[in-house]
């Protein structure tokens, strides 16, 4: 009979802000943020698509930066602030302007990419507002259509053909 190898699993205690609320948990060192969010904290809005950083469906914000949660070590959110699609609107029943614009533009079909798209668009808006964007483009206050496409390059959509998604982002800057 094969001897069963018993590995002592070391757990790491982390504490972070999730959608504005403090969360404490104990996790394995190899846990990725996506699994922590979906499996342990049961926030299923963040989607697991390719699991290898290609599709962007799992995009969440870590301290306002859009990251692929499938390739982000959960221990690294310790002390940081994480925003998922569940925390995008402020909970008063109104959609966030990014979500509103996606809906109004008809940019949602099957919806699988939408959480990630919304988070990436939100990050783009914040980065343009704070001046943390690529220098020397479009007079610097708002992105061109090409720049929006470039920003959303890490988010795949297999339904819409992207036109309406880019439209929805463009409208946020023209208002």
């Amino acid at each position, binding site marked *: 009979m094969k001897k069963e190898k018993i590995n002592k699993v070391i757990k790491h205690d982390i504490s972070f802000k999730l959608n504005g609320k403090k969360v404490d948990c104990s996790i394995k060192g190899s846990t*990725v943020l996506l699994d922590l969010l979906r499996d342990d904290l049961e926030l299923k809005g963040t989607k697991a698509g390719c699991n290898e950083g290609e599709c962007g469906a799992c995009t969440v914000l870590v301290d306002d930066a859009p990251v692929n949660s499938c390739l982000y070590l959960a221990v690294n959110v310790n002390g940081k602030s994480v925003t998922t699609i569940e925390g995008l609107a402020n909970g008063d029943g109104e959609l966030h302007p990014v979500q509103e614009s996606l809906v109004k533009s008809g940019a949602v079909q099957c919806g699988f990419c939408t959480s990630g798209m919304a988070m990436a668009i939100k990050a783009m808006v914040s980065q343009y507002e704070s001046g943390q964007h*690529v220098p020397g483009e479009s007079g610097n206050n708002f992105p061109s259509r090409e720049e929006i496409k470039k920003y959303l390059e890490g988010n795949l959509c297999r339904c819409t053909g992207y036109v309406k998604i880019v439209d929805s982002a463009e409208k946020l800057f023209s208002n």
Partner: protein
Amino acid sequence: MNFEIINPGTTKELLGAVNKLQKEKFRFGAGCTDLLMELKKKPEDGLTIINLSQVKDSSFSGIKKSAKGMRLGAMFTAHKIVVNEEIKNAFNVLHESAHNLASTQIRQVATVGGNLCTASPSGDIACALVALDATCEMLSTTGKRREINIKEFFIGVRTTAIGKNEVLYGIAVPANEKKTKTIHSNFIKIGTRRSMECSVVSLAYHIQVNEEGVIIKAGVSIGASAPTVRFAEEACDFLIGKKFKAISQKEKEEFAEKVLSYASPITDIRATSWYRKEVLFNISKSIFE
């Protein structure tokens, strides 16, 4: 995927962790975008990851400018390169290489040090830094600091000159020449699509021209064309003293031939060796057009 992780908070703790693990199997995790992909596909038993993300040390994660040039900490991210206006103005090749790396999400976390230490023949930031004649600075567990030119940093596919008891600490890029008036600096990445692409062939160049239009310093390097990123020294030497705008068709071809002499590409799923050579020849010529 299962591994242990150590999270040093300071450089001292980091070197302590490296020292402690000298006889064990360990890897460094910087942005972890390559590493986690690799470990998801091919898990390794008994592996410890030394997580570099939590080390608080501005020399390790920040940028510093001086008269000699610019020094990036190994943990400086691709995103930080992209949004840095001074990098765009002085070293456009570095800006472009970082901007063409993977995707927005990956660039937020992917680091300069990670791109170098992965030592992929198609490393984008690596290719730009070779053209810029950068210097790599390593810290050892013995407290020794060692500097080597980036051309000596890459030994083979996924192999670098870093010792097991060393950490890549920073990368220094020399300032542009005082007499430089115009800089022709860019990164050409050829792939089968525009985003999330691993280069089929890449070419980085940083050519400095003085007031008279004469080339006074040139750095040209190629990616995805040999086991490592390569510096095309003879091609660079060939340009010195020539007027950038007066380079003839024959000279362009001669230059491209010299660049090509550093290429020994393989045929793989992305392109054939023949295709890579043809493309490299053509993009080398296109620098002057």
